[in-house]
C-alpha cells in the first residue's frame, strides 16, 4: 500500500508546515490577525541563512552554519516584533482585518526586499545527500531530520506555552486585554514578544522547508498551505495547528500518489472549502462566541 517513502515525505512536509501553522495560530489568538506574510518571513530566513553562511564560510568562521541560522532568526524575530508594533499602532479599535491587511502589506514589502537584495536568484543549502535503505525504498535522511525536528520544535513551543507563566500570560492577553492590564501584565512588551516568537517559528519553518525544497522567492508560497493548515486546525488552538499541518501533508502527498501531482495546490483548498462549510472553526478551534452569526 503506501510506501515508506510516502510516510517520510509526509513527515517532512508536516514538519515545516506545523511550525508555520503554529506561528499563524499564535498571532491569530493574540490579536485576531491572520499572518499572511508567514511564507515571506520563512523565505527571508532561508535567504539570510544562506547568504550569512556564504559570507562566514568565506572567512572560515567555525560553526558558520549555526551562527548564520541565529542571525536569520534574530532578523525574523525583529520583523515579527515590528509587525506587532505596527498592528499595535492601530489601537484597540483597529478591527482585526485592518491588522490582516497590514500583514498582507508586510508580505508585499518583504517580497520587494527579497527581490531587491537577491534579485530572483535560486539557491540550495549545500547538504550532502545521505540515504537510508529501509526495506526496498530509499529514504533521504534530510527529509527525516526536517520532519522530526519540525514536529519536535512545534511540540516544544506548545509545551512552553502550556506550562510556563509567560505562556499563560500570552493566553490571558489573547483572552482579555483590559483584565491583563489590570493584573499587571506588561501588555505591550508581551504582545511584541509574541510577534518575535511567531517570527522565529516561521523562520525555522522556512529554513526547514527550504532545506528540502529550494531557497527562492517562490518558496514563500509555502505560507499559503500553512494558512490552510492553520485554518483547518482551528485558528485558536496550537494543537489544532499541528493536526491541520499533518492532515494537509497527508492530503498533499496522497494527491501526488493517487491523483495527478498537478492538483497538489487545489486539493488542500478543496479540503479547506469543506471545512469552511461543515466545520468552520476547524478541528479543535473554539467557536468564536463573541460574533456568532
Amino acid at each position, binding site marked *: 500500500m503506501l510506501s515508506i517513502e510516502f510516510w517520510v515525505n509526509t513527515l517532512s512536509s508536516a514538519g515545516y508546515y506545523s511550525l508555520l501553522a503554529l506561528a499563524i495560530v499564535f498571532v491569530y489568538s493574540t490579536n485576531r490577525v491572520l499572518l499572511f506574510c508567514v511564507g515571506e518571513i520563512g523565505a527571508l530566513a532561508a535567504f539570510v541563512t544562506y547568504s550569512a553562511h556564504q559570507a562566514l564560510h568565506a572567512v572560515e568562521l567555525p560553526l558558520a552554519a549555526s551562527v548564520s541560522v541565529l542571525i536569520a532568526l534574530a532578523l525574523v524575530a525583529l520583523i515579527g516584533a515590528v509587525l506587532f508594533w505596527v498592528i499595535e499602532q492601530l489601537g484597540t479599535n483597529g478591527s482585526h482585518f485592518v491588522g490582516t491587511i497590514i500583514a498582507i502589506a508586510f508580505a508585499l514589502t518583504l517580497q520587494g526586499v527579497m*527581490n531587491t537584495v537577491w*534579485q530572483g536568484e535560486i539557491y540550495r543549502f549545500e547538504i550532502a545527500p545521505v540515504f537510508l535503505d529501509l526495506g526496498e525504498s530509499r529514504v533521504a535522511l534530510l527529509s527525516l531530520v526536517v520532519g522530526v525536528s519540525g514536529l519536535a520544535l512545534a511540540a516544544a513551543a506548545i509545551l512552553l506555552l502550556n506550562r510556563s507563566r509567560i505562556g499563560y500570560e500570552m493566553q490571558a492577553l489573547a483572552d482579555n486585554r483590559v483584565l491583563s492590564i489590570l493584573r499587571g501584565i506588561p501588555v505591550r512588551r508581551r504582545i511584541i514578544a509574541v510577534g518575535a516568537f511567531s517570527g522565529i517559528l516561521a523562520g525555522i519553518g522556512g529554513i526547514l522547508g527550504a532545506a528540502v525544497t529550494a531557497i527562492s522567492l*517562490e518558496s514563500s508560497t509555502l505560507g499559503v498551505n500553512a494558512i490552510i493548515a492553520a485554518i483547518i486546525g482551528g485558528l485558536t488552538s496550537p494543537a489544532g495547528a499541528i493536526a491541520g499541518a499533518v492532515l494537509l501533508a497527508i492530503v498533499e502527498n496522497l494527491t501526488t500518489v493517487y491523483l495527478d501531482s498537478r492538483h497538489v495546490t487545489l486539493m488542500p483548498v478543496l479540503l479547506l472549502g469543506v471545512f469552511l462549510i461543515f466545520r468552520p472553526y476547524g478541528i479543535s478551534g473554539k467557536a468564536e462566541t463573541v460574533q456568532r452569526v
Partner: protein
Amino acid sequence: MKHSFTFLGALFASGVLLASPALAATDAPYKIGYISDITGPVQGTFKYTYEGFKLFVDQLNQEGGINGRKIEVLLKDVQSDTQKSVNAVHELKSAGVLGIAGLAVSSTHAATYAAAANAGIPVVAGFPPNLPIILEPAEKYAFGVGEVFNQTNTITGAIARSIKKDAKRIACVSFEAPGSIYSCRTTLESAKKAGFEAAEIFIISQNQRDYRAVASNIAKFKPDIITDCLGQSHVIGLLPALGAVGYKGIYLNMETAIGDQVKRDGVKNAPDIDLYSYGRFISGKNIAKEGPQARKLQEAASKAGIKEIVAANTGGWVLGQVIAQGLEKCQGDCASSEDFRNALEKVNVDTGGLTGVNVQFTETNHFGPTAVRLYHYNRGTTNFDPVGDWHGIAPVRRADK
C-alpha cells in the same frame, strides 16, 4: 478627506511631468523598444536574453550602426505584469519606436501583441517563450525568435530515440502553465511517432516546492528517458529529487533559458542521472570556433566579464541580428513602424554558427524553420559536448487557425 485629496492629486500630477517623451532630432538613431522582466518574479529567465541583445547592439553601434545611424534601445521593465506591458507599449509608441523586442512571461504576450497591433508596431518576441500565433498564418504584427513549443517539441521524440535506440518508456514533466502543458503534449505525440510504447505527462503544481513526491511518482513509472518543459526553479528542485528517489536513467532537458550552471548544480548530487540537453541556441565557455558571429559574441561577452555564455545570451544576440537586418532592409530612412514591419517579413539572417539554420521570416510565417542540437553533459570536464549534427525542424501550422 480634503487634505488627502490635494496630496493624492499632487502625486499624480508629478507622475505626468517625469514620464513625458524624449525630444526628436534629424538623423536620429533608430529607436527600438525592449520590453522584458528585468526585476520581476521571473527575471532569472529573461534578463540574460536582454544582456545578449544589448551586447549585440552596443557592438553594432561601435562599428557605426546601420547606414551610419546607431540603434537606441528603450528598455521597459514590466516585471511580467500584463497591465504594465500594455502601458509600456503605449509609452514606447509615444517615444516613436519602430519596433518592440523581447517580451516577458508568455501570459503577457497576447495582450502586448494586441496593444502593439492597435498601435501599428511590430513585436519580435525573444528567447524563450513564443506564442503559436507567430506560426503560419501569423498575426500581422507578431514575430518571434525564441521557442514555439508546438514546433520545437515535434522533434523531441526523434532526439530521445537517437539517444537510446531501445528506449520504450518516456515521461515528460511540465509545470502548471498552459504553454508548458501544451509543450509536453506535443512531445509525447512525437515520442509515440518515434516508437515509444508508453508516454506519460507529469505536471508540477503552481506552488509545488516539494519535488520528492513528484519524483517518486515519475520513478514509479520507470521511464527510460525523462524530458521536460520547465523553468529554472523547477529544474533546480526536480533533478536532486530524482537523484534522491534513486532514478537511474537519462534526463533530456529542453533548454528554455535555464542555463548550464543550474543543470550542473542539479545533477551534482545525482550521480546516476545521465544528463542531456537540447536547444536552438549554442552555449558554453568557448564557442568562438562555432562561427564568425559566435566569435564576436565570445569577444563581446568576455569584455563584459561574462565567463560562460548561456543560451539566452545567444538568443538575445540573434534577436539583435534580426532587428538589425530588419532596419537594413527597411526602404528609405525607415521612417514608420509599418515600413519596419514590412522589412521584417524579408529577413533571412545567417546567425554565423549561433543556430543550426538561418532565421527566416516570410509574409505568412513570422517564426520560420528552426533546428536544435543535442548536448551530452560530460561530468569530467563539466562541459556540454555536442552529439551529432543539428536536427532541422519543419515549420508547423497554427493549431487554432
